[in-house]
């Protein structure tokens, strides 16, 4: 029937069997093996880093770690209590700035903006801002806040650090708010507007609550990322060997876990190095917990 082709005539039933020696099957197995090995390599760093952080960190965990100040160089003991507290303070400041601005911007993009050049520019800018190196954010905040002593005459301060971190959080918060609100069914929006609700009421009482879970997921993820950031803090929040005290402490330099790890990792003292590992342990536990929590929240939201 097909004189032009000889392909078919060569085929017999045995050809249907898997032939492991066939070049294409060898090629397939080889590439599968490579992909598997690559995946293994991709997972190894996490396992190695985590196990070192746990091994070196856990041994140093005790009550003093949370309640005492870092020791002076050459002395034993001490803790990182001020840095733990400082990380919380700076991260909270950053969150308090980033959430209203980010959620507000996200609401604008999802609920008000029409497809125009302005909203396109904002979306584009959000993505570009996400790509700005974090060290440049530090330089920026140093320039406009620290060196000008803009905030009631203080230079390096917890507030300056928080502002630098908030710039890093902003793109993520905007994007997740935008995307979360877009997931809300348009019918719901129409229904609310249809009974005469204003746009404000529709957003604050219908769409925003519906989109709560995805937005919260993104916000938590961005908080956990901000908590581990170092580069924007080294010349905004700086560091401190003392406890933050009173409301004034917001306007003073403040210790954070991440900057402590950086500073203590390059000191030649064993005690400081150990504290750096302990700080890493606490930071990683905190961040992974936040991550897993946001994942759980995300899964809850998709159900």
């Amino acid at each position, binding site marked *: *029937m*097909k004189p*032009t*082709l000889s*392909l*078919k005539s060569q*085929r017999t*039933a045995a*050809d*249907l*069997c*898997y*032939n492991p020696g066939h070049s*294409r*099957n060898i090629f397939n197995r080889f590439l599968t093996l490579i992909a598997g090995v690559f995946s293994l390599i991709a997972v190894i760093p996490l396992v190695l880093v985590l196990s070192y952080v746990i091994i070196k960190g856990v041994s140093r965990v005790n009550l003093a770690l949370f309640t005492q100040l870092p020791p002076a160089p050459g002395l034993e003991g001490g803790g990182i209590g001020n840095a733990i507290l400082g990380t919380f303070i700076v991260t909270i400041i950053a969150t308090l700035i980033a959430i209203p601005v980010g959620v507000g911007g996200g609401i604008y993009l999802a609920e008000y903006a029409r497809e125009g050049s302005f909203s396109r520019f904002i979306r584009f800018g959000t993505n570009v801002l996400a790509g700005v190196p974090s060290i440049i954010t530090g330089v920026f905040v140093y320039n406009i806040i620290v060196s000008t002593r803009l905030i009631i005459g203080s230079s390096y301060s917890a507030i300056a650090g928080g502002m630098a971190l908030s710039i890093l959080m902003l793109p993520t918060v905007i994007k997740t708010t935008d995307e979360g609100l877009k997931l809300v069914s348009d019918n719901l929006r129409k229904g609310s507007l249809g009974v005469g609700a204003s746009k404000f009421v529709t957003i604050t009482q219908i769409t925003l609550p519906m989109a709560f879970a995805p937005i919260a997921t993104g916000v938590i993820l961005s908080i956990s990322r901000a908590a581990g950031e170092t580069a924007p803090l080294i010349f905004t929040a700086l560091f401190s060997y003392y406890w933050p005290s009173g409301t004034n402490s917001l306007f003073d330099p403040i210790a954070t876990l991440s900057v402590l790890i950086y500073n203590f990792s390059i000191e030649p003292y064993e005690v400081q190095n150990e504290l750096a590992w302990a700080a890493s342990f606490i930071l990683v536990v905190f961040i992974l917990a936040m991550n897993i929590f946001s994942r759980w929240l995300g899964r809850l939201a998709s159900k």
Partner: protein
Amino acid sequence: MASTPSTSRQHLASDICISLDNVTINYNNLAAVRNVYCDIPSGKVTALIGPSGCGKSTILRSLNRMNDLIDGCSLSGRVLFDGANLYDPMIDPVEVRRRIGMVFQQPNPFPKSIFENIAFGARINGYKGDMNELVERSLRQAAVWDECKDKLNKSGCSLSGGQQQRLCIARTIATEPEVILMDEPCSALDPISTLKIEETMHELKKKFTIIIVTHNMQQAVRVSDFTAFFNAKALEEGTGKVGYLVEFNETEKIFHAPVQKATQDYISGRFG
């Protein structure tokens, strides 16, 4: 089993191409279609019809192991082709697909040039002949040559839906399979394109065994020599439905003298 087809199996056994022997297909341990016995004749067009959810597409996709792509899909029973059970662990599904080609419900040309769309399959099947000649011949057989001949280097996605589907048929022909499976090939197309594809099928059946799933009974009458009618019934366990083969016979008989009442009801439009 109640679903044993009423037609005697010997009756059709003259020249069997693919034989389904007590085939049951499960998705995640839930039966989708159950206990199918069917001998599909060689060199003919066989249509699989039935209401949606009756498992006709699932059966079709099982014939060249396309269901392997779906997680959690498993098959019990035997699918015999050329003396081998296609679900034997020794079988290479890639070999199976080279000899049993498939045309899908949605036209799915590769995002490559029209020429490459045809040449890709032939090349991986080890075709050593004149590629230009093969491309032209395949496109001619699929009745899409005239529309394509001046833009062989254009993307396959630039064609209209009907042309894309005929390009996909040409792509399948170019690999020289013995059997062509067609999964509702016209469901996404307009009536004129449908007509052209049906004309193409009349040409193709001279060379290939064709098995087509269609929900359009007129189409089954127009193109097929044999028809298998599938139906779905509620599972005894209570949840969901399971498909089964009701009746398999010459198309003529199925549509004019069906044995089963369900077939009669279906073809007269009483349900489905």
